[in-house]
């Protein structure tokens, strides 16, 4: 695996840990947030918290698309599962997320045609191979994933594919980060920005967080060295009171991002106000189809009746997603809520903060 394992050199990680301790001496307690679920997983998997000085707190953010999809989205997906002559295609992460009364997995067990795909292109093939069925793709994900769905929609349009539409649940990251940065209850002193979102939107997309909110941002890669160097850079910027956007993951992320992908993304979708599980509505934080593409909007093309939302009692996924509670603060963690039998979304997705804590740090509360 070229350009992955080389970044896991232990000596360099140790050296960085020492620099971290030195930088932290200049600071009071600082609260950093890793926004991306893949970072959450990487930090838990490599035990990186053990390298952080005591006054450096790192909390997980709302960067797992499965976790932030509101109950109503799952409930709508469930309604499509129950619709006759319909195939529901989805990324695997969604299958076990509990909605108000059911999940895709339960619907599948009850006979619904739910198919897990690795790419939207696979969903297009399923539509081609099943002309007598209507194929709904569950389009979730941030700016990393949304362009791949936009590309598939363009391909479906160009090839005249008549039986493909998407249930759009895409979200965009910077408005959510701004919402958290301006919430006095949360108080984030620095962001580790989501790397592959940044590969698309570019480092400059976070400039307003440094300029207007005074919150330093580092776009760091996923390997242990990357994360520790990113944290070090944040501590330095906080100590110097010089908030900027710095790109540690320079092998992939540029200032301007991937303009070709952004052009395709915004050809098909436009920004809308959207609801985040646990956080609530955030202006400009979601995507919806532009009117030229309404034919590919499942909710317009094939409307379904959706059950009323019912949120499980005791679940604190919302607070966990905002970084004001850790998984172990939840009364259900490790008891009523486990990866085998999840109550909240953060325990379902392998990238959820609760699943990562359960898997790598144990079930004990």
């Amino acid at each position, binding site marked *: *695996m*070229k*350009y*992955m394992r*080389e*970044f896991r*050199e*232990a*000596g*360099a990680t*140790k*050296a*960085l840990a020492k620099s971290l301790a030195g930088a932290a001496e200049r600071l009071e307690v600082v609260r950093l947030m890793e926004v*991306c*679920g*893949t970072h959450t997983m990487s930090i838990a998997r490599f035990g990186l918290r053990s390298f952080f000085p005591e006054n450096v707190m790192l909390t997980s953010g709302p*960067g*797992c*698309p*499965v976790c932030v999809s509101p109950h109503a989205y799952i409930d709508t997906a469930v309604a499509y599962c129950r619709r006759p002559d319909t195939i529901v295609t989805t*990324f695997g*992460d969604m299958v076990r997320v509990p909605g108000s009364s059911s999940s895709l997995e339960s619907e599948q067990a009850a006979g619904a045609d739910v198919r897990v795909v*690795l*790419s*939207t*292109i*696979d969903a297009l093939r399923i539509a081609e191979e099943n002309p007598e069925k209507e194929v709904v793709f569950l389009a*979730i*994900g*941030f700016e*990393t*994933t949304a*362009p*791949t769905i936009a*590309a598939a929609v*363009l*391909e479906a349009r160009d090839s005249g594919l008549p039986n493909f539409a998407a249930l759009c649940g895409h979200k965009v990251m910077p408005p959510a980060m701004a919402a958290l940065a301006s919430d006095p209850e949360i108080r984030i002193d620095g962001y580790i920005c*989501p*790397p*592959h*979102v940044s*590969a*698309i939107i570019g480092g400059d997309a976070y400039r307003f967080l440094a300029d207007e909110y005074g919150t330093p941002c580092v776009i760091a890669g996923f390997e242990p*060295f*990357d994360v520790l160097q990113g944290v070090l850079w944040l501590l330095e910027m906080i100590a110097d009171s010089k908030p900027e956007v710095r790109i540690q993951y*320079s*092998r*992939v*992320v540029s200032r301007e991002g*991937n303009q*070709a*992908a952004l052009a*395709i993304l915004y050809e098909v979708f436009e920004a809308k106000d959207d609801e985040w599980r646990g956080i609530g509505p955030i202006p400009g934080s979601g995507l919806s189809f532009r009117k030229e593409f309404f034919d590919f909007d499942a909710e317009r093309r094939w409307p379904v009746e959706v059950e009323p939302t019912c949120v499980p009692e005791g679940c604190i996924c919302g607070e966990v997603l905002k970084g004001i509670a850790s998984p172990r603060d939840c009364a259900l963690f490790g008891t009523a809520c486990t990866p085998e039998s999840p109550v909240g979304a953060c325990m379902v*997705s392998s*990238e959820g903060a609760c699943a990562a804590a359960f898997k790598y740090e144990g079930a004990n509360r």
Partner: protein
Amino acid sequence: MCVAVPMKLTSLDGHNGVAETGGVKLSINTMLLPDAKPGDYVIVHAGFAIQHLDVEEAERTLELIRELAEHEGDKEDTESG
């Protein structure tokens, strides 16, 4: 969910390419990275190349890692000796 892996693009026909890493081959789409060409390292997410991997930048970071590791190794030698 934003997991993406570096792969080497080995062939390309229109937007349809084949990428490889560690002996694993995968069909990928390059619509989102129109200037990708065979031989490039690309970052692959959900069957699409979404960005280039800049080999020079990667080597620069690796060089820093090697330097830090060496420095750390020297210090440990001194400390233990």
